[in-house]
């Protein structure tokens, strides 16, 4: 302590420091200060561990509404909503058979706001699935997966699979009829490689299917062990995987140079006046501004920043916040309109008839109704492999960052949609009307049914059509457009058939109103 200081001075200094502690706490936590100038706006982004996944400045092209429609951020927002509501649900949820069902009932009927939180969780999960699929379609139809973004497309596929995994493990937890039979069917899909090993007669030596089922269920029957494993997947393993993949996905966007944009994006942006969007609550750079005001006309430095970029804070972050609020509004609206379902307590002796998964899996359920292995394992693997290969086979550059860019354009998409919708309709209606191989040749070996069934036929038609597109348009991008459009159309057709046209015993009905009464 300094010698010329009296004890009173020391106490006074102490009191001053104590009073300024809150302000200094704030200053040490947020070192950049308020984001009011270009420099502090930069610090605001790169000085923050979470925000610096974004770059400091954002290209105007990325901020155009039609570039992304905010679909990726909508998916993230839905994930954040499920995260928050999921933690709240875990306060009451008990992952044991029967107790699980009772705890969901408690959440729904007894816990204050429990019903709203559960509805929000369920609807946000649905919104997330839709947003992720649409976001993928956006990335595809703007050819945004091309160099240097190939690897991020793969991360995106990983995110899609993880999202579907979270949805699947989620609706198992209430331990109602839907949950019990979905676990049973899911575990048996995991076991379905036996369909092939049995046909080859090697199951007793090599049984990957049986091992997968055992690892999922932790037992040879569906019970407490299975529930705790799916609970662990739902609340720990898959969310962590999703968060890790998301971090890489966002960081890669920045490292790959932001959103994909056409080569002439700058020229097209320059044609539009942006004075009204900038500056936003800033102390305008007074000197330059006055000079610019004297000299009528446009100067390069004012208002637009270098290379047609604007500070991410506030332009990008406020746009993202807007999408978050819209997503929350959508989920809240849906939650107030419609309650999350809860069926009867699981009954291991009587499956529901028909036992239907949530809508996003009904296309898959339609596929497994032809062959468990091909529909549940084989074709999904082929689809994922096909999607993953797209950026490595399409190495063209025409139309990058452009909606429906590249050869063929909208005409090709329309043509592909006709094939994509027509093929499953024709194949399904003939299979529904005339039956399939087993009805015609009762003695046919199982391997033939596994290899040749409506599901594999549809996959083959789509693959051949895509190869035809490559030939016809002399372009791998055209083949990719054919394949992806067919994939989306097939998903829609199969989902609609599974949802509306399948009744008891998975038989065909024109409408649920025609189902025989139970």
């Amino acid at each position, binding site marked *: 302590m300094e010698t010329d200081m009296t004890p009173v001075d020391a106490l006074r200094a102490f009191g001053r420091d104590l009073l300024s502690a809150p302000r200094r706490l704030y200053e040490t936590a947020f070192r950049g200060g308020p984001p009011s100038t270009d420099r502090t706006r930069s610090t605001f982004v790169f000085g923050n561990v979470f925000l610096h996944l974004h770059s400091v400045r954002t290209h105007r092209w990325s901020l155009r509404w039609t570039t992304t429609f905010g679909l990726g951020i909508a998916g993230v927002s839905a994930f954040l909503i499920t995260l928050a509501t999921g933690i709240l649900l875990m306060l009451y949820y008990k992952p044991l058979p029967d107790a699980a069902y009772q705890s969901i009932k408690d959440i729904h009927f007894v816990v204050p706001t429990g019903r709203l939180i559960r509805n929000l969780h369920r609807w946000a999960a649905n919104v997330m699935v839709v947003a992720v699929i649409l976001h993928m379609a956006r990335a595809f139809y703007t050819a945004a997966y091309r160099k240097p973004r190939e690897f991020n497309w793969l991360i995106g596929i990983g995110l899609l699979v993880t999202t579907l995994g979270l949805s699947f493990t989620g609706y198992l937890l209430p331990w109602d009829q839907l949950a019990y039979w979905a676990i049973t069917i899911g575990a048996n899909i995991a076991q379905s490689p036996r369909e092939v090993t*049995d046909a080859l007669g090697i199951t007793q030596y090599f049984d990957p299917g049986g091992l997968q089922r055992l690892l999922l269920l932790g037992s040879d*029957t569906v019970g407490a062990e299975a529930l705790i494993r799916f609970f662990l997947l739902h609340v720990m393993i898959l969310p962590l995987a999703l968060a890790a993949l998301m971090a890489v996905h966002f960081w890669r966007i920045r490292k790959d140079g932001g959103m994909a944009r056409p080569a002439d994006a700058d020229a097209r942006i320059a044609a539009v006046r942006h004075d009204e969007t900038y500056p936003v609550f800033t102390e305008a750079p007074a000197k330059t501004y006055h000079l610019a005001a004297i000299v009528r006309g446009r100067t390069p430095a004012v208002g637009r920043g270098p290379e047609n970029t604007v500070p991410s804070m506030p332009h990008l972050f406020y746009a993202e916040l807007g999408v978050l609020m819209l997503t929350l509004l959508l989920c809240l609206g849906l939650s107030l309109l419609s309650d999350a379902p809860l069926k009867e307590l699981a009954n291991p*002796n009587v499956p529901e008839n*028909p036992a239907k998964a949530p809508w996003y899996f009904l296309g898959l*359920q339609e596929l497994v109704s032809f062959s468990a292995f091909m529909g549940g394992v084989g074709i999904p693997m082929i689809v994922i492999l096909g999607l993953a290969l797209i950026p490595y086979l399409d190495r063209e550059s025409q139309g990058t960052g452009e909606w429906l860019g590249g050869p063929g354009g909208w005409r090709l998409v329309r043509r592909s949609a006709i094939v994509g919708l027509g093929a499953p309709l024709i194949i399904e209606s003939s299979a529904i009307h005339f039956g399939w191989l087993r009805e015609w040749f009762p003695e046919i070996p*199982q391997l033939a049914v596994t290899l040749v069934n409506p599901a594999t036929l549809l996959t083959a038609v789509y693959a051949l059509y895509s190869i035809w597109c490559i030939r016809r348009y002399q372009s791998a991008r055209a083949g990719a457009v054919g394949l992806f459009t067919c994939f989306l159309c097939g998903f829609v057709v199969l989902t609609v058939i599974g949802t509306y046209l399948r009744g008891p*015993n998975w038989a065909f009905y024109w409408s649920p109103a025609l189902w025989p009464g139970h």
Partner: protein
Amino acid sequence: MTVSARPARSRLDPEPISRRDWLGLSSLWAAGGALLFGLIGVLRLPKAAVLDSPSKRFQVQLPATLDPGAAFIPPGRAVAVFRDAQGVYAISNICTHLGCVVKTGAEGFECPCHGSRFAFDGSVTKGPAPRPLPWLKVSVRGGAITIDEGATVPPGTKVA
């Protein structure tokens, strides 16, 4: 700057590795190997040595009058038991497609989940089921009938 021609080296006569590099590389491989072996050991954890599942053997009391060809479903079990002139036999009621419990219909067993149909002898008549419903081991001892869901017998095996 002069470029000195270095002697060409082949696969049989590789570039010598320095002692420091060798030590670094071998410790890297040792660390990687140790982690890998540890991981392989722990991978056994999710597969339990004893499975938590109810007993698969149970006794069944058939009704005094059971028509040949008519199925008797013991309460709480996914098994259909039959009795005819040759004896008693039991057929699993778990669909070989994706594990749903089949219902007894007029012409055989029907699966509600994906539409598989089976005849009363278990053979597949329609749908995606890859295998017939298995026949289960039945033992009759002094009037008491025991069925073992864990053991299958060839179709047609009836126990008097």
